[in-house]
């Protein structure tokens, strides 16, 4: 019988599993908030004029940035878990892993530029 003291030191999948769930919670809450704000609060009109002021507030920028990071982590990690199930050759794994990381960096850059450049 073991207690809940820190016994496991190396990261061998536990963290990825845990973060997948943690990010899922954020994505879920954020999605609901998005839905409510876009469709039930305010005029319901979706134009630059109504959206830009909100997106230019620092709080929203922070929330969006977090969303971007978490969504990317969640998606890329999920894909990686699936690939790890089926692909067992080391070379192919390394290649796909780099591909996913590159994809993440590109998507993050595009997303971050969008978030930071919004002005009211």
């Amino acid at each position, binding site marked *: 019988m073991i207690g809940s003291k820190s016994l496991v030191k190396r990261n061998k999948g536990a963290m990825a599993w845990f973060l997948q769930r943690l990010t899922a919670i954020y994505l879920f809450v954020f999605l609901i908030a998005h839905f409510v704000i876009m469709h039930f609060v305010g005029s319901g009109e979706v134009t630059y004029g109504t959206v830009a002021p909100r997106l230019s507030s620092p709080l929203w920028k922070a929330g969006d940035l977090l969303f971007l990071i978490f969504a990317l982590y969640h998606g890329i990690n999920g894909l990686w878990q699936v690939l*790890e199930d089926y692909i067992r050759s080391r070379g192919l794994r390394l290649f796909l892993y780099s591909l996913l990381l590159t994809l993440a960096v590109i998507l993050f850059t595009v997303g971050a530029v969008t978030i930071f450049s919004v002005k009211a």
Partner: protein
Amino acid sequence: MKRKFKIFRYDPEKDRKPYYKEYEIEIEDGWTVLDALNYIHWYVDGTLAYRRACRSEICGSCAMRINGKNRLACKTQIKTLGKGTIKIEPLPGLPIIKDMVVDMDPFFRNLEKVKPYFIKYSPLPEEEQLQTPEERDLINEAAMCILCGACTTSCPSFWANPDYLGPAALLKAYRFIFDSRDEGGKERLEIINDRNGLWRCHAIFNCTEACPKDINITYYIKKLQNLAVNNQF
């Protein structure tokens, strides 16, 4: 009553490819699939190969795929299988030795990895070690496993990757890690906290559905995942 059986046949020494052979036999009320296999083997076709021993759901030898589901032949009443032809195949995901006899070595090798025995470092007690009913409750269900292999061979993660420990080995790890008398929990958790261990379980629940002992295997794997994550902090 006559029933038809469509049975997987393969002898790697003779056959180029596996095939199915049909047998129609007269069955009696109350027969299990194992009774039918015995009948076929004894009176119709002596070349049919399958494993069996206790015929009372405790040895775990006769696990096979019956109408697409992993189950024990000795526990499966023929009358619960509907009206049509009954299809019998070996457990999936393991090398076939002959017909329904599969090579269980990969299964038992995975089991060995989690040290499926009591580990005691403190001096051995003079008398038997008692558990409270609460302590026993933690492991009671998990300790019912008869190592039939129905769970691990129904698991898509195991099919995709035979290095995955699989539900049976993880359940065994749980059975000892959560046993109040055992002292090897730490080393076992180190072993199963691995990308080919705990984290290959994606909660598909096939194992839980297959288990002839009705053990809620997925629940126990989740308990282990919980423990492993808590130990990260």
